[in-house]
């Protein structure tokens, strides 16, 4: 059959970014921010995230915590994202971003409280404007778009400095309408929103390859008319660079963009999961060879600003901080039963006073 002649309307490219390969060798000149001090700080935060996750899993096993979603293997994404944001920007997280939460100033105790079944953990002492952890997949992206609208509104209408909303979600989140509606609006309204897809290759038991027919998740941004790229999510420098670039674009009013950060979930989905039921052992083994901490440490060691003594010193300090936080978490008395009504409305409507009193055992 004769093939019809067509006219080209539009073309799109999706590219990927990397600085440090698996062995910690640079594949191109590093960005300016990548000074030894900064890289040590990144490394330290990644190491802390790993410790926090590791302890959480142990505490769950011993009944001190509920179901917990570790971010083992994804520390570079969390830390890269957190480091790319200004303090006054607003983070709109999913539930698996220990590194980013710590960067934002959410405390270890708060993280443990949340997964220990205590809403008080979401009342972040420091990151007052950041959104709470969001469990329903991808919903936070719409909240993020709303936050971005508000930040733009306050900038343009009320003369405040421009701030940026950053939201994260997993590979699975890109299948939900919420994700798509959020990026489409962000493009349409040119919101200061950065969407980071933490592609850890799994959504519980569903591998990335079965989540969508797309070659990359980054290309989904084409459907919203916004720029996107893929980065090596095990390379904290690449994550920091790509997200930083996206944040700055948003801050200068040039609109939203999306970053797909490719890593690997090196752990069970949560402590309630058993990944050996569905995950090929070989894939896991290979993924370990690409994990983010070792490659950065190799780089730091090769360039002479990190060694065993620094590592030991750091581990000691981090463990101390962790112990302190664990202790504080354990020492926190359970919330009062009436707390379940105290923050439902700003003022409890009269109609529910009777229930409140019943709860207090008053009738």
């Amino acid at each position, binding site marked *: 059959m004769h093939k019809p002649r067509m006219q080209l309307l539009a073309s799109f490219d999706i590219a990927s970014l990397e600085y440090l390969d698996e062995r910690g060798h640079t594949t191109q000149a590093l960005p300016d921010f990548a000074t030894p001090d900064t890289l040590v700080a990144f490394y330290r935060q990644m190491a802390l995230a790993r410790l926090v996750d590791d302890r959480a899993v142990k505490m769950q096993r011993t009944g001190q915590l509920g179901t917990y979603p570790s971010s083992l293997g994804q520390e570079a994404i969390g830390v890269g994202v957190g480091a790319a944001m200004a303090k006054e920007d*607003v983070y*709109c997280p999913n539930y698996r971003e220990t590194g980013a939460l710590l960067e934002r100033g959410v405390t270890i105790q708060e993280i443990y409280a949340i997964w220990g079944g205590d*809403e*008080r953990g*979401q*009342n*972040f002492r420091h990151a*007052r*404007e950041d*959104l*709470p952890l*969001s469990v*329903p997949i991808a*919903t936070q*992206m*719409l*909240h*993020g*778009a*709303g*936050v*971005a*609208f*508000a*930040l733009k*509104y*306050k900038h*343009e*209408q*009320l003369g405040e400095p421009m701030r940026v*909303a950053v939201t994260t979600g997993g590979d699975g989140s890109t299948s939900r*309408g*919420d994700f798509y*509606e*959020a990026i*489409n*609006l962000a493009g*349409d*309204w040119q919101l200061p929103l950065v969407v980071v897809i933490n592609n850890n290759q799994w959504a519980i038991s569903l591998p990335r390859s079965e989540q969508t027919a797309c070659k990359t998740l980054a290309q989904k941004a084409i459907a919203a008319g916004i720029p996107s790229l893929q980065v090596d999510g095990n390379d904290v420098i690449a994550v920091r660079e790509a997200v930083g670039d996206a944040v700055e674009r948003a801050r200068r009013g040039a609109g939203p963009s999306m970053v797909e950060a490719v890593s690997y979930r090196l752990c069970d989905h949560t402590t309630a999961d058993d990944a050996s039921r569905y995950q090929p052992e070989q894939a896991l083994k290979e993924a370990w060879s690409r994990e983010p901490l070792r490659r950065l440490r190799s780089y730091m060691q090769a360039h002479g600003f990190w060694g065993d003594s620094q590592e030991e010193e750091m581990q000691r300090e981090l463990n101390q901080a962790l112990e302190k936080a664990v202790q504080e978490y354990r020492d926190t008395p359970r919330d009062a039963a009436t*707390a*379940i009504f105290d*923050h*439902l*409305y*700003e003022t409890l*409507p*009269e*109609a*529910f006073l009777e229930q409140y009193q019943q709860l207090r055992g008053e009738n």
Partner: protein
Amino acid sequence: MGEITLVEAITQALAFELQADQRVVVFGEDVGVNGGVFRATEGLQDRFGSARVLDTPLAETMIAGIAIGMAAQGLRPVAEFQFMGFIYPALDHILSHAGRYRNRTRGRLSCPIVYRAPYGGGIHAPEHHSESTEALFAHIPGLRLVVPSSPARAYGLLLAAIRNPDPVVFLEPKRIYRAARQEVPDSGDALPLDRAFVLREGTDVTLISWGASLKETLQAAEQLAEEGIEAEVIDPATLKPLDIHTVIDSLEKTHRCVVIHEAARFCGLGAEVVAQINEYAFDLLHAPVQRVTGYDTVMPYFQLEDEYLPGAPRILAAVRKALDYANGGAV
């Protein structure tokens, strides 16, 4: 000023609050240039600009979701759903987030949002344009659910809803959008939420209804009055939380009660009213509370919608049933 309709009262309230509070933004499908398909936002974009009165892309989950982020940042979003029949994709965000944000963050963040939607049948609209599913929202913790039934109440309650620090689902009975006119001074005075309004005093039977059905309810009351039966008519206005005290006070006089709503009966709001009367006023009742409601079927296409909607004859029949009930009730 002249008298205005219910939908004009909505516009007037939105305009007042847009003027008074820079944090207020109004958005939804076709609310801008077009002024909304019912003209509830007519002229607002002209007056307040397209940065504050915004047309969204066609996506209801999005409309519900962005309101939450806006509110968390201290804005006062007023989101319109074009019809209640298209609000369901928004339910997840309203239930899972808007109603929970304050509680989840122990007061750190909150959701002072108004979700508006025209609701109810009787205008011969296509399928999905005649829904009355207020009960779904009534069951959701952390929300308020408000339905005005006159221009003045529309104005005062919408102002109260926008100023309220927590999320409000505000359903506008579109069948009476233009049914009556009333003098509504643009005073900026809100009416109280969580309080029922006694629209008509009476001693023989208590009729409880809201929104458009109050039209037929009041008609029925007039007809009863001609027969010497004085019905007290109560409009809860805020359906959740429900002001049951006003109902009980009324039952102290009347001892008989009929609840009227357009929505399907099963698990409708009428059931909650009956349950609370059962709990708080069991001894007062001389007859079972009657429910006059939509049938437990889908709102029909418009040729049969009048068969579905509870009209004055069905209300009257129920009142008579309550009045005739063999003297004395239980045992």
